[in-house]
């Protein structure tokens, strides 16, 4: 069945240079450096990546970082907690705008 997202396409990510090598090289070099052990460990960065993958709802990233976080020793419970952090921030981002709504409503109403 043809779909917009084919899991096999993830393997071709490294080939995007075909349509522009210079920027692709710069991106992958940057990407590789971002995920190195530094002030944050590669392990911590992997869990952040999983949470962000859910925020941007990228199926490729979700597959890749589910596998990566499990390989790095996180439990399923920890993965789910990370996604709840995403959800809390996404939900909170909507809900915090209710302050504006309330302010406007109070201004308009008697």
């Amino acid at each position, binding site marked *: 069945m043809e779909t917009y997202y084919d899991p096999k396409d993830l393997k071709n990510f490294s080939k995007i240079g075909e349509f522009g090598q210079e920027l692709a090289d710069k991106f992958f070099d940057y990407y590789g450096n971002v995920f190195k052990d530094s002030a944050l460990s590669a392990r911590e960065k992997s869990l952040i990546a999983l949470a962000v993958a859910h925020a941007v709802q990228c199926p490729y990233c979700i597959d890749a970082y589910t596998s990566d976080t499990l*390989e790095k020793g996180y439990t*399923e419970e920890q993965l789910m907690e990370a996604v709840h952090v995403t959800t809390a921030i996404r939900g909170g981002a909507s809900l915090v705008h209710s302050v504006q709504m309330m302010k406007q409503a109070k201004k308009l109403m008697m």
Partner: protein
Amino acid sequence: MKSLFASHSPLSAPDVQLDALHKLELIPFSERVKNAGLEEIKPLPISIIQVNLGKMCNQTCKHCHVDAGPDRKEIMSRETMEQCLTVLRNSNAQTVDLTGGAPEMNPHFRWFVEELSALKKHIIVRCNLTIILANKKYHDLPEFFKEHQVEVVSSLPHFTALRTDRQRGEGVFSKSIEALQKLNAVGYGIDGSGLLLNLVYNPTGAILPSDQKGLESEFKQRLKAEFNIDFNALFSITNMPISRYLEFLIESGNLESYMEKLVDAFNPMAVQNVMCRNTISVGWDGTLYDCDFNQMLDLPVNTAKANIRDFDEHALGFRSILVDDHCYGCTAGAGSSCGGEIA
């Protein structure tokens, strides 16, 4: 749960297992080695002799590459063990690695360990931990191991019950913890005791193991905090795509992606240190193999005489090591061996 053998699964046949890998049409392992500019994998002097004392086990783990279990009756005879001892008396190999199944279930196990101890060999026993509690006759194994300065290597795939039990069977985690505490009580894993207790981590699923040092640090912290358990080192081992783990990969639809992962993670540095170069594996019936995995795939060493009774260390030094696509399991990432990472 039954073994593949007892349940008459087609996958219990080694050629069916290799066919399943070949159907994926990966770059053949030998070609991948060549493409990396490396020479054919050649033997080094034998330093480890790994002896499989039988397929009998008190557990039936889902990832077992031996297809061991309580329903397997194949065990090494005392006569074959005597042939092993004759070889070891005249061999420079200083380490004898005893594996199974549960090697302790072989009725000649203790006699064999005593004889090896008299030869002053370094003895490793791959103990599944739960065997220590399985029957009264095994309760004193920690003291027995200590008496013969045996290095104990035990699988504990995770520091949580959920993940360990999912791989090794219901209730295995709590029994393993109790057994580890008993080993600690006689000095195993305790700094300064000289008694080595090493744990083995195998991923519980179609994933590769991560950085061994990082995992070791987390295991040490969690096992100490929650169960007051000490151990020396954690060996991180990649699951080989054979036997019951292969069955899991096929049934869960993960075979192709797992093999692609192994191939993509091929590390030329690991090739130099694969365990088949310095190890000989002896099957329960005395047949010789390049490694424990070739043993389970029924691929004996490529020499005229492939049995412990005809052991010829010189001829083995010139043999061609048999490789196939399962070998990608030993060369992925940081590499994998019975002693953990190799690169």
